[in-house]
Structures are given as structure tokens and as C-alpha cells.
């Protein structure tokens, strides 16, 4: 698609890019709205976690880190290679409803830098996969 073909730099350097320092694992294609949501990710050696780093749920097509729908402070992991999990399950967390939109997780550092983005998912009332 023409929209992306004129920006080859990003597509070809994904592995070494600053934006793939946090890898989201086992992201579902959809999640039940209003249910606890587990988000698993791995911190690569390229990132030094900070207590004020956070994981946000963003609507696909967001333009700044301030566009998050909801977020959680990222728990400090035991080691860099271990799987880190944060759970969106607090009653106060406002998770999107079944609205037909696509969302993705993004890892944001305490300085506001995006260091990882997940594949997209939807919130759907039935047949989660």
C-alpha cells in the first residue's frame, strides 16, 4: 500500500528499532469487554526498566503517548529475560467496550518514549480467541 511503501526505513529495521525493545507475547485477537485482561511482555537487553514505566492500551492510529485509553504502571521484573505480566483487572480501570475498534498495548518509558507496540486486538462480547 502506497501509504507505507514510501517509509521503508521503519519496516526493514523493526528488529533493531527503539520501538521493539519490549516484545508483547501471546496477544489475543480479541478480549472480553469488562473482564480481567492479562498482558505479557518481555523486556529485551536494550531497555532498563524504571518504576515509572507504564503499559497503555491505545486505539490503533494513536499519535501521541497521551492518547492512551487506560494504563498500568509496569511492575519491575526480576530479570530482563523473564516474562513480565501486568493484569488489567482493577474495577477502576476503564477497559473499552465492544466498539468495533482495534486497540494495541504500548510500553512507554518514564520519559514518555514508546519502546514496544503489540499486534492489534478488539474487545468483543462473544467467542474470544
Amino acid at each position, binding site marked *: *500500500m502506497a501509504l*507505507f511503501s514510501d*517509509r521503508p526505513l*521503519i*519496516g526493514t529495521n*523493526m528488529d533493531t*528499532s*527503539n*520501538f521493539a525493545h519490549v516484545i508483547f507475547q501471546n496477544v489475543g*485477537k480479541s478480549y472480553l469487554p469488562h473482564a480481567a485482561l492479562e498482558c505479557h511482555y518481555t523486556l529485551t537487553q536494550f531497555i532498563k526498566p524504571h518504576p515509572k514505566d507504564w503499559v497503555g492500551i*491505545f486505539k*490503533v*492510529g*494513536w*499519535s*501521541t*503517548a497521551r492518547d492512551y485509553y487506560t494504563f498500568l504502571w509496569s511492575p519491575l521484573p526480576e530479570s530482563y529475560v523473564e516474562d513480565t505480566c501486568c493484569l488489567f483487572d482493577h474495577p477502576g480501570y476503564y477497559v473499552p467496550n465492544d466498539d468495533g475498534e*482495534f486497540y*494495541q498495548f*504500548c510500553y512507554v518509558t518514564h*520519559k*514518555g*518514549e*514508546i519502546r514496544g*507496540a*503489540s*499486534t*492489534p486486538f478488539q474487545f468483543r462480547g462473544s467467542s474470544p480467541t
Partner: protein
Amino acid sequence: VCAGDESVASHFALVTAYEDIKKRLRDTERENTLLRKRVKQLEDKLFRPEAL
């Protein structure tokens, strides 16, 4: 953070989502084709058993 970095990050995240949704569209279209064929087979079996 400089605004340029954020704009590149936002673009990266959009490309990630786009590529994945494009792949899912291909998979869904493939499944759609299979389901159409299956429905056609079952219709033929029900309404035109002599044609089989």
C-alpha cells in the same frame, strides 16, 4: 522526547497493526471462500441430490 521520535513511534505502531490486520483479512477471506464452497455442497446435497 522530541516530537519526531514520537511521530516515528506512532507510525511504527500503526504499521505493526496494519500488517497484522492485513494478514487476518487474508485468512478471513480464505475461510469465507471455504465456507461458501461448503454451503454450496450442502445445498446441492439437500435440493439437487440427483446432480451429485
